[in-house]
């Protein structure tokens, strides 16, 4: 479990986060949603330790992350996998070398064992046989899947995903969402996804946190989103008239049943 406690973050005079506290549960897909500029990415980067908060604490299973020394932070980070918005695959390495990188750096496995592990990860993300391709030779959706394969290669306890669906078509986005959810359930991972993709919210939102103007404005799950009376959340999720009509129809159908 990851717990954030009263997180504040300012950049010069601009206060981006204004006292956010929440818990992220293991075995669940925890979503952070909100408009652009709501502070989602800053919050995610604070959770993962890439940005230091102005004040507040982050606990990994009751361990205060920002009080740890470098060695202890490295130990925690070896239990963390992260999928970046742009996949962040190393251009000069093949797909296999990208996925193998954490193993090369930190494990004592033989090359054959590492290759087995890489192949297992590639099969898990439905991408067998692309080992020798370079990131520039595969599509954006495939790059995301390679990013997921690299994130899970060390069997992480915590998985962070920053906008996993950005730039993908709806069908591929759904596949990525399902893949992340399946991996989360299979390995009981604490998964935190930063997104503003409404399909993700409605499909895999086990635990949703809505940030608005640097504050936690709403919490719930995908079923509760539909019935929410929070005006900010409604105007964010059901932004178009088409989605508003869908919501009305869905609520009517629900009340009839």
């Amino acid at each position: 479990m990851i717990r954030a406690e009263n997180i504040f973050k300012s950049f010069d005079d601009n206060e981006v986060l204004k006292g956010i506290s929440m818990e992220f549960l293991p075995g669940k897909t925890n979503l952070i949603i909100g408009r652009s500029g709501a502070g989602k990415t800053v919050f995610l980067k604070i959770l993962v330790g890439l940005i230091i908060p102005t004040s507040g604490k982050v606990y990994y299973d009751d361990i205060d992350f920002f009080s740890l020394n470098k060695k202890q932070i490295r130990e925690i980070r070896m239990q963390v996998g992260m999928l970046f918005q742009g996949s962040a695959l190393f251009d000069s390495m093949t797909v296999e070398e990208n996925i193998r990188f954490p193993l090369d750096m930190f494990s004592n496995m033989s090359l054959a064992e590492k290759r087995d592990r890489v192949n297992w990860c590639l099969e898990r993300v439905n991408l067998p046989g692309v080992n020798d391709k370079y990131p520039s030779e595969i599509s954006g959706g495939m790059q995301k899947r390679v990013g997921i394969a690299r994130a899970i290669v060390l069997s992480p306890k915590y998985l962070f995903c920053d906008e996993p669906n950005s730039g993908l078509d709806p069908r591929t986005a759904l596949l990525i969402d399902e893949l992340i959810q399946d991996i989360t359930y299979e390995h009981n991972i604490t998964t935190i996804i930063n997104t503003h993709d409404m399909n993700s919210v409605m499909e895999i939102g086990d635990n949703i946190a809505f940030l608005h103007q640097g504050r936690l404005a709403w919490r719930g799950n995908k079923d509760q989103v539909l019935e929410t009376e929070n005006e900010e959340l409604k105007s964010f999720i059901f932004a178009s008239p088409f989605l508003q009509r869908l919501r009305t129809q869905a609520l009517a159908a629900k009340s009839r049943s």
Partner: protein
Amino acid sequence: MNFNLLYHFGRYIMLLRQAFSRPENWSMYWKETLRQMNDIGIGSIVIVALISVFMGAVAAVQFAYQLDGTLVPRWYIGYIVRDLAIIESAPTITCLVLAGKVGSNMAAELGGMRQKEHIDAMEIMGVNTANYLITPKVVAALVVIPLLVTLSAYIAIGGGYLATVPTGQITAEEYARGLRAFFIEFNVTMMYVKAFVFAFILTTVSCFQGYYVQGGSIELGKASTNAVVFSNILILLADYLLAVLLTS
């Protein structure tokens, strides 16, 4: 302004401290160091050879022109070209050129990695990124740049020969006599001291500029330019200080 300078100097020192710590996995660092040696060394041979041959040729022609109508023996051309190459042009000019070629490349590479979140990705994995990304570059440069400087000195001397002997300004025997005259071994030591110091400056300053890039392509361009400008200024400053220290 002064505080800004101190701030950047402090960050530079802290980055070096982080970079020169114990590697997590020696074999990964060794592979990366070899790759950097290839990029810096093999990738720079042509440009170093080209500038060196002209440095030697120009020095020889200019000196021959100055000797016209004087009582100074013409075989001094070989002597001057040799010492000029060893003491100054091979280490300094080569490193100034390498700051432009290799330094800007390093800053752009690291800056690009920062912008594409590659450095963040490595940090999340638990990699000491300053150590993994900077140390192999510095070690590779410390090995390869002195070799390039040696090559440069030889080629500059060859350039002086080509500019004066085939054109009939002096004979091959005269040029060779000049090369053998008044040889001081310490000058070679001085060349290597300069090569090591300049190699360290140009790699660490360039990596520093690239590692902390923020923003977009304009900032990346600025970092790359700053890498060259600051490296060149610091190399020239170090050149002066070393000249004072090593010749006093």
